[in-house]
């Protein structure tokens, strides 16, 4: 039985780190280490000497990984970005999901596949959830501003709620703007004038 692969996940979001580690536990026997603070990433990784490093593509600290590709000493193991040799488009799938994998040079793609499959699936799911959450938050935020602007118009003009709403919608259409933007402009202006 081979030694379990040691895997590092560079992820500052504890939720996502927990999700990925859970999937990896289900996928096989791996030693997982999470790096939450990417300061001096190259140094941290060097000292842990892992077989695989997984890092979010959106993380600018990823560039620090590239230093490790130029192994400077004979005892250091060069790492390479995982470039698909399995012919299954795994690299493309990983990049689309927003994760990149660095492996010790010469590692068999077959040993990496279950790790990547599990990580990609989680990254995709978390990404969908995040988008939904952000959209919902934005919609709520906008509704709050629109309600506030509506109240201001009703008071200033002495009109009903429906009339105020219709007026804002017409203004937005005439000015070729989103209603939330018109509302925001009104709220900001009112703050400035008060």
């Amino acid at each position: 039985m081979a030694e379990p692969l040691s895997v590092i996940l560079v992820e500052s979001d504890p939720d996502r780190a927990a999700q990925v580690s859970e999937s990896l536990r289900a996928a096989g026997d791996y030693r997982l280490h999470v790096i939450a603070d990417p300061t001096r990433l190259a140094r941290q990784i060097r000292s842990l000497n892992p077989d695989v490093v997984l890092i979010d593509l959106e993380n600018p600290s990823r560039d620090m990984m590239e230093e490790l590709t130029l192994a400077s000493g004979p005892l250091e193991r060069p790492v390479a970005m995982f470039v698909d040799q399995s012919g299954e488009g795994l690299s493309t799938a990983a990049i689309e999901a927003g994760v990149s994998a660095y492996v010790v040079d010469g590692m068999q793609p077959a040993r990496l596949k279950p790790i990547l499959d599990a990580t990609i699936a989680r990254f995709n799911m978390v990404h969908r959830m995040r988008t939904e959450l952000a959209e919902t938050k934005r919609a709520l935020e906008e509704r709050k501003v629109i309600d506030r602007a509506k109240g201001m118009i009703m008071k200033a003009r002495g009109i009903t709620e429906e009339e105020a709403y219709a007026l804002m919608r017409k203004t937005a259409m005439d000015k070729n703007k989103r209603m939330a933007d018109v509302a925001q402009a009104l709220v900001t202006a009112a703050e400035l004038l008060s």
Partner: protein
Amino acid sequence: MKRAQIPVGFIPLVDAAPLIVAQEMGFAAEEGLDLLLKRAPSWSSLRDMLAFGQVDAAHMLAPVPVAAAMGLGNTGGPLSVMSVLSVNGTVIGISAALADRMRHQGHDFAFADARAAGHALIEAAPDRLRIAVPFPFSMHAELLYYWLSALGFPAPQSIDIRTVPPSLMADALRAGDVDAFCVGEPWGSIVVEHGLGALLLPGAAIWSFAPEKVLAVRTPWLTQEAPLAHRLIRAVWRAGKWLASAESRLLAAELLAREPYLSLPPEIIDRALSGGLTVTPQGLQRDVPGFLRFHLGDASYPWTSQAQWIAHQLAIRTGLDRAAALRAAAPVFRDDLYRGALGDLCPQLPQHPQRVEGRDSSNLATRAHPAPDNRFFDGQIFDPQRPQR
């Protein structure tokens, strides 16, 4: 007519301007193109987005395609350079603590003399100088190695060059992780603005005609999409020409400042475009002619000798065979494509794609064809036919 769409990746830096301007000012549309500009979080991501087809063209550090051709670093396949997007435009800066020490030792922060600034830095530097660059394969790293070793500073043995992404440069200084840095604008000015450090030299003070960013594509894409490549070169060339005009500066800074491009105040961006930089948190002003070039003096022409200079430096540093490196690098910069695309727009293109880098040719300049100087600070030249050092 429906315009052809090309996804193009960029990193939020002032020198991404030719791509942003090509799209925003309609130069792409004139060529029947619609550039879908995608902002990338890091150079390694952008290189992979290009290699794996998320984008078809990219704003790229000039040494990345050369390193790939030499088999260095991670690469998903061969890359080609269609034109140079920008010449110069980087700054070397130091931490506030190191700046104080240098000031006490009498350094004037003239921001021009690479020799004087280098000696002052070496004198004030701690035992092991920690310098940040944005990427291991970058002109930033090459210029630093060239500069410090020409001054007798035994780089890389006694300096510790670390990778810090441009947008995190200020954080690295704040955390005390580095003593000095080399970065593209506006990230050097951001450091000054936060009072975390001072600017010591423009990259141009080390080599006054350093190819900084290039327009890179996957080599196989060129064979499949030759007509699109042509149109893209033309659109970007026109954008560079527009950027070179003084009247364009204000608008260019406003365009770049917008979301989703740089999302930073236009005033900070204007510093690099005008070459008028604020070099210390106390507000010391310095003007640098030719701080960042997009067009003048055939700035966008992809000289094979530029690719070879990079290859030569990389080979020296990594112990690879120099002759083989020069052979591998030459075909990466595609002057043939550039010439083919722009022959009718600019009839006076250089006759031969290889020149002696560092040999000042300003005496050959004519009014119609200005040649900015091409000099290394130590007066050396690089002749690809007879490479030395």
